[in-house]
């Protein structure tokens, strides 16, 4: 469903991704690990089309469509979801309002009718419970005054509501205590249905104890230098990233 070929991309003048290849099939969970500065977050931003993240060469196809041809919102409407590492606040706009607009924008793009307020409320309440947030979070401003953990859970709630075909979780585990971590993991696991796919970007192996990946990739200096099964994550946990050595030698 997702095919990334020889992806080179830069932020401002600096090339961050230097020939990244990745194939994700329906239903698979891929974990991407790697040291700071390897390009983990950049990958998510380039895929979702964030302004300032420029493609130099290569291609990204989602379900046979060239993503680079599409606007940010069009990519989202095609089923690409990014759970943010640092979710931003939108004061005065309630979570409920925001999510309803979002869900209905996606439905519209698919040619489906918009959900009524009542219909939406029902699914939103359900999603809220699933990530263990009190219902009054629906009424509060988007991420307004949320704790770090609450923001991350709120992202997962949005993912549950939008049911994307491919979700990228950008360090959704950072700064979470063990209970919140389980909530995030459960949220993802509940969405694994053999069709939806996930890219879990993380620094630590910890999250992968709860979300079992099909594949683990090590990203270093803009390239995937090693791929394997879940055992690779454990290896990294044990040895760290020092074995990567200098970027030039990595993956040789």
């Amino acid at each position, binding site marked *: 469903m997702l095919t990334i070929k020889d992806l080179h991309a830069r932020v401002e003048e600096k090339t961050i991704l230097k020939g990244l290849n990745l194939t994700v099939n329906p239903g698979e969970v891929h974990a991407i690990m790697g040291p700071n500065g390897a390009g983990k977050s950049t990958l998510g931003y380039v895929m*979702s089309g*964030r*302004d300032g993240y420029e493609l130099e060469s290569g291609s990204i196809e989602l379900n046979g469509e060239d993503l680079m041809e599409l*606007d*940010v*919102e069009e990519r*989202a*409407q095609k089923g690409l*979801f*990014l759970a*943010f590492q640092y*979710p*931003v*606040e*939108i*004061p*005065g*706009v309630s979570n409920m*309002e*925001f*999510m309803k*607009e*979002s869900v209905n*924008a*996606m439905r519209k*793009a698919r040619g489906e009718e918009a959900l009524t307020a009542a219909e939406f409320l029902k699914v939103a309440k359900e999603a809220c419970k699933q990530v263990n947030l009190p219902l009054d979070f629906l009424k509060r*401003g*988007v991420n307004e005054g949320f704790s770090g953990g609450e923001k991350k859970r709120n992202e997962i709630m*949005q993912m549950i509501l*939008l049911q994307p075909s491919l979700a990228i979780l950008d360090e959704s585990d950072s700064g979470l205590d063990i209970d919140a971590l389980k909530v995030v993991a459960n949220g993802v696991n509940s969405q694994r249905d053999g069709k939806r796919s996930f890219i879990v970007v993380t620094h630590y192996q910890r999250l992968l104890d709860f979300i079992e990946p099909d594949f683990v990739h090590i990203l270093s200096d803009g390239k995937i230098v090693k791929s394997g099964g879940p055992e690779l994550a454990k290896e990294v946990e044990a040895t760290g990233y020092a074995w990567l050595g200098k970027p030039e030698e990595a993956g040789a």
Partner: protein
Amino acid sequence: MSEQIEKAISRKYDAGFVSDIESDTFPPGLDEDVIRRISAMKDEPEWMLEWRLQAFRSWQKMKEPDWAHLGYEKIDYQAISYYSAPKSMKDKPKSLDEVDPELLRTYEKLGIPLHEQKMLAGVAVDAVFDSVSVVTTFREKLEEAGVIFCPISEAIKKYPDLVKKYIGSVVPRGDNFFAALNSAVFTDGSFVYIPKGVRCPMELSTYFRINELNTGQFERTLIVAEEGSHVSYLEGCTAPQRDENQLHAAVVELVAMDDAEIKYSTVQNWYPGDENGKGGIYNFVTKRGIAHKNAKISWTQVETGSAITWKYPSCILKGDNSVGEFYSVALTRGRQQADTGTKMIHLGKNTKSTIISKGISAGNSSNAYRGLVKMGPGADGARNFTECDSLLIGDKCAAHTFPYIESSNPTAIVEHEATTSKVSDDQLFLCQQRGLDTEKAVSMIVNGFCKEVFKELPMEFAVEAGKLLEISLEGSVG
């Protein structure tokens, strides 16, 4: 991203059409003769003419104020026509059936159907077209409750004692340059009188439309709420899209007697001019209310139009325990300039005022909040809370805040909070990543920013205001 935002802010103006209506229009120019003619057209009593002439004489000695943070070419007051009325209004239509259908169509196009059965239930409308009131709906129903709602030109003749007593009592005819000009040449506007203890059974609203070229609109509104009464009033304004600047100088006076409450809301959408600053309405308005014992006056304004806005709806909190409120959203884009805010004059004991001002600047516009909170020597235990927030969209606009605080009473408490923020790339990206296009995203962010003010508007108009902002921002992000 700011480039996208710029694009989104260059919007179209929906109300910019011109109605093809034959009008009687005075040739441009202003002298005592013109004032006599206006007064004669309105068939006014002698005292009214005298009042106008005195206002004119004081205006002639006054200087146009230049302290506001506004830049514009000097207005040539002799190049403006001071009276214009549709020809068909000359014979004073008795009912809606006799009103020129083209006039009715104009209001229909603006979303204000004047046929009562088609109207928003529960809202009575006075429709003012250039210098005259075209029709006032639901008058019988209001009369049953003892409420007077009619054009001020009519009130001058029908209720001279009431008008004489209150006109100029809050905004004296020589109050300031623009108020004096208005007092001399005002042509129409609304008059509202709510008797003692009456809760007005419906929302009252006046809809102002400027149509004729080179004509100024000078309306005057007077609202008197007797002891223990209650009224909610809303005004809306639009004008055609023209290359010339047009002047609008209005005066609004509110009188809230003991225990009365007046809620005054404005949705101002005068033509703002094009993206290069050509054309647009110059909006110089004096609005003030006086609150007696335990009375409450609440101003809510949503200002999206006009090339220039100079406007400070104010409250004189004269009676003990009286309350003044000012909730404002001012949006400027293109080359628009706004200098707006409020004055809260605390005279009575335990008087309270709240000011919530939300300024949104986009494009190359400039948006200034100017507010005065004054605690008089007798204002024991008075309190004010001011919150002044500015939101910037793009990087070529400006926001300014000019708060003035004067306290002559040590027991009075004044609080002022101010913030400035930008619609951030992060916020836009989040919205887009969730499938919303940039325009929708910006309008949502801006609406969220304005929420505290929108919730003060009467329900029907809150929706309207939200939509208006959305249209105003159309094209501001692309």
